[in-house]
């Protein structure tokens, strides 16, 4: 039962060998991962890579083969019950525009047992949003802020965001991320964010998962990522004397070449050129091409 105390070491989400076929296309191909407390996980993939299919499977919206539990339970068993334990934003432009802010808050208080209306009001005090305002009268940025505020006032330990900042300008995006980290995240909680815009969430993630054609191509923590990947920038042609030194990706630019290495010693690499930590975008391209 969801009402029982879950062992604090048990993962929030546990996925083991999950596959899903749509006709002959493999939307998910033997996916395994688990998410525990204290993580901000970025699930990153191109459109059609399987991100949404994986989220839908987690929400109990489609059948799949393999094992998948959320808070120890099969999500197919009861979506409404599950949503008491995890909060979720499918689209920040989805708040009902005809509602007043105050009506939204009291509705949430009535339907969601974990919603803390006092906290929501306190969080709203720091914004220009008036409680008497109608949602359609708010700017896009303010609607996003309101949605996030409402979600942050729900006391659940697991927050799922599906392409949360799609179509928002850079100021709103930055604000959104700052609120997540300051007002929600702590060591007891976790956030799962899906996106295909990598650069914008890189800074807040603690763990990165790349997905391509339904398969997980990379799953590393941010700290691990720094240790195991390096980017080398060389000018002119280069021949590596060490046969173990094989780049996983190579990109020819106008006046230099960029090479991505996995598991290579940066000290060894620095003999050939400038060594840096690759960005997520570099890694995404390297592992997906």
């Amino acid at each position: 039962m969801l009402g029982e105390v879950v062992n604090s070491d048990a993962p929030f989400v546990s996925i083991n060998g999950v596959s899903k076929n749509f006709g002959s296309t493999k939307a998910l191909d033997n996916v395994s991962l688990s998410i525990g407390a204290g993580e901000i996980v970025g699930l990153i993939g191109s459109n059609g890579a399987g991100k949404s299919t994986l989220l839908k499977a987690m929400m109990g919206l489609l059948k799949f083969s393999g094992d998948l539990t959320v808070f120890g339970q099969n999500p197919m068993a009861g979506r409404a019950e599950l949503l008491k334990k995890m909060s979720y934003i499918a689209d920040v432009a989805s708040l009902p525009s005809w509602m007043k802010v105050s009506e939204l808050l009291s509705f949430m208080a009535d339907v969601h047992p974990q919603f803390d209306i006092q906290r929501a009001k306190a969080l709203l005090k720091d914004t220009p949003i008036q409680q008497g305002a109608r949602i359609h009268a708010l700017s896009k940025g303010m609607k996003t802020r309101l949605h996030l505020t409402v979600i942050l006032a729900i006391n659940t330990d697991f927050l799922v965001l599906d392409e949360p900042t799609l179509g928002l300008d850079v100021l709103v995006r930055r604000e959104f991320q700052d609120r997540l980290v300051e007002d929600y995240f702590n060591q007891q909680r976790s956030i799962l964010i899906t996106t295909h815009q990598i650069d914008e969430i890189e800074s807040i993630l603690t763990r990165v998962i790349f997905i391509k054609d339904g398969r997980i191509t990379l799953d590393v923590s941010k700290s691990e990522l720094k240790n195991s990947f390096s980017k080398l920038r060389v000018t002119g042609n280069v021949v590596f004397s060490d046969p173990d030194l094989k780049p996983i990706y190579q990109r020819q630019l106008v006046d230099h070449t960029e090479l991505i290495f996995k598991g290579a010693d940066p000290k060894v690499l620095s003999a050939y050129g400038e060594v840096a930590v690759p960005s997520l975008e570099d890694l995404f391209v390297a592992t997906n091409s």
Partner: protein
Amino acid sequence: MNVFIALLKREVLEHKNLWRVPAVLLAMALLVKLSFAFGNLSLDFDVPKGFDIESTVDSFVNSALGKALSVMNYLIMLVMFVVGIFYALASLFNERQDQSVLFWRSLPISDAQTVGAKLTIALVLIPLIILVLQSLVALLFLGGQSGNYLAPYFASTLGRMGQVLLWSMLPTIAWCLLCSQVANKSPVLMALVLPLLAILVDKLFLSGALSDAFVINRLTGVDHYSLGILIAGVVFAGVCLLVTVAKRGERF
């Protein structure tokens, strides 16, 4: 229970016609009443049997006023049922149009609860609004004597209204909710065109008896009331509602 009441409250806040139309109807009743006092009201409109009161009972009021009351009360019922039909056609469609369905479905509310709330609005709240409106109009027309009118009026009409609700409104509303959930462009068009096509095929190629029994007699009144057809309608409504809930569940 708290959740269900919150869902009902949400519907009333969202669909303003649920209280705007009653306000207009009351204003109309006020005009009719004023016309009695200062104008020259005459009514050429017959209320179907069963929706008026027997002539022996209404002898205590001015007969023109009594007739106006019956007409007004019948009008209230018709208009509010139409409001219910358009409410059902709009409610699930609007959610999909403005994307708010994504928000509603991110909350711990099952699709069955949501669809159930919408059905309750159309089949419980709207009939209640009708009764309240009819009582208010009687009060407006007759003042202190309204009780003497309302008691026999409701005695003769309540049963009829219950019949209409089960016989005509339940299948109609369930069908409209289904169209509201599945139509791509226009639920109104879908709700009208599909039954019309079915009737046309039946009339042109078959005897036409099926469409008379299952659709036309149902919509034209309760004169052809029969238990078998009533049960068929309830089963049809149940299927429509189950499909509606399942289809809403496919939204991410």
